[in-house]
């Protein structure tokens, strides 16, 4: 399978199954597009002799396995499937009332609840026992808002450090926080112990305050920005992301990216909201053309900004390193929800991921129970880009890895039917990422 597209002045050709990337002149691009669409290459409006030269180039690429290459076979994961990553819901409560919150403003459609240390401790024990031969494990302190259960967060990190020695493993703790309840003591601890911090901040003050009010209805921007700046200033070389959300209210989200860089942040991830069509904030098919243009504008701004160390920044979805990227098995398996990755609620229930929490049909089990539901795990294991009809013929499959499975269930209608709007946006971002890679070479 091949995919050709234009990015700025570049004519780009991807060989999907091998990952090879070629840049084409205008004649070759016209010929390849004709072939891709099933048309006669000699009808592409290119001189016959030139078409023959392009076809010769294609033959040369085919011989080197870099054009329309065969689908490779991925080895199975060494040691079999094991749980290596856990989202710990330490607080089903939040001090914000974000209008687009997937977690029903923190309680996940259930009771407001904080995770007792004993439950978190059992969850970490469970992770150790189920992680098989995996050396590197991940635990995200998540909510709601995890800082609302701060003492337990600290206790869990201390316990995790004991388990690392006991089991000869490494835990990368991360925290996803809105920063409202940060203080100096928490900042010091986070910057010492957390491998990565994901900070929720949407960009411009007016956008953020309209969508992320506090419990009493006031804007949260000022306190979050001040705390986030302080937190990031102390992180040194450690990872962080400013993680914003855009909705139909700010389709001009480039302005939010610019605002975030103006505040001094360099690691930025702005995500499209995913909500039901009838939500006043959801993204709809009629918004896609506008969003595509915004990604193009963001890409152009990104390339220019990165030419100077003073304005350099990183955008999560434009990161692309073909040589250092993941192996085929990872690209096929994707997020690992339900098999490599689970979420644990404050009362010890286990779900395939944080987005499934509260969906009883998808509950895998409990820390108190003997076994996880093997039928649900089998559903996830059997659902990947090689098995899904909508993915196996998609050129983006090895870059996207099949999309969010929770969004597939919630908004696509089934585990194996990805959310179409998310697919469109993913393909657009990947084209930008590849184009940026070409531009920056």
């Amino acid at each position: 399978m091949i995919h050709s597209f234009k990015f700025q002045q570049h004519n780009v050709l991807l060989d999907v199954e091998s990952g090879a990337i070629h840049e084409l002149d205008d004649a070759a691009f016209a010929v390849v597009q004709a072939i891709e669409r099933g048309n006669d290459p000699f009808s592409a409006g290119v001189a016959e002799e030139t078409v023959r030269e392009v076809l010769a180039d294609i033959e040369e690429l085919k011989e080197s396995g870099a054009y329309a290459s065969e689908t490779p076979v991925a080895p199975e994961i060494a040691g079999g499937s094991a749980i290596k990553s856990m989202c710990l819901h330490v607080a089903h409560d939040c001090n914000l009332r974000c209008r687009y919150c997937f977690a029903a403003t923190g309680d996940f459609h259930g009771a407001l609840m904080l995770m007792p240390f004993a439950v978190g401790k059992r969850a970490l024990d469970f992770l150790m026992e189920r992680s098989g031969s995996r050396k590197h494990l991940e635990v995200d302190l998540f909510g709601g808002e995890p800082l609302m259960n701060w003492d337990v967060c600290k206790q869990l990190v201390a316990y995790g450090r004991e388990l690392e020695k006991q089991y000869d493993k490494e835990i990368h703790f991360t925290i996803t926080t809105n920063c409202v309840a940060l203080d100096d003591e928490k900042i010091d601890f986070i910057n010492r112990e957390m491998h990565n911090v994901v900070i929720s901040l949407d960009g411009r003050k007016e956008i953020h305050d309209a969508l992320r009010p506090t419990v009493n209805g006031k804007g949260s921007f000022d306190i979050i920005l001040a705390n986030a700046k302080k937190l990031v200033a102390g992180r040194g070389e450690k990872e962080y992301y400013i993680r914003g959300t855009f909705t139909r209210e700010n389709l001009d989200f480039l302005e939010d990216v610019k605002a975030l860089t103006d505040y001094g942040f360099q690691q930025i991830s702005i995500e499209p909201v995913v909500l039901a069509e009838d939500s006043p904030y959801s993204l709809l098919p009629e918004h896609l053309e506008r969003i595509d243009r915004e990604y193009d504008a963001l890409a152009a701004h990104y390339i220019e900004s990165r030419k100077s160390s003073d304005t350099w920044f990183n955008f999560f979805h434009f990161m692309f390193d073909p040589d250092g990227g993941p192996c085929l098995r990872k690209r096929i398996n994707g997020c690992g929800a339900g098999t490599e990755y689970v979420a644990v609620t404050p009362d010890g229930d286990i779900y395939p991921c944080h987005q499934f929490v509260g969906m009883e049909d998808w509950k895998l089990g409990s820390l108190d129970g003997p076994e996880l539901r093997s039928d649900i795990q089998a559903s996830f294991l059997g659902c990947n880009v090689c098995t899904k009809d909508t993915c196996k013929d998609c050129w983006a499959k090895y870059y996207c890895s099949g999309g969010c499975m929770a969004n597939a269930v919630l908004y696509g209608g089934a585990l194996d039917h990805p959310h179409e709007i998310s697919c469109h946006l993913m393909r657009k971002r990947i084209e930008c990422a590849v184009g940026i890679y070409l531009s920056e070479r």
Partner: protein
Amino acid sequence: MKHMQTIQKPCIKAGKNTACGECQASCQSACKTSCTVANQKCAKEEK
């Protein structure tokens, strides 16, 4: 080749030394809502 320039040779790793399972779960990195692997690093390469 006259009309095509290879920028990146075949790079999707599928050999016997792959699939170690040590890489980060993609959803844990930054997004928490969308699954992307193109922007992830191979755990072996990172070392």
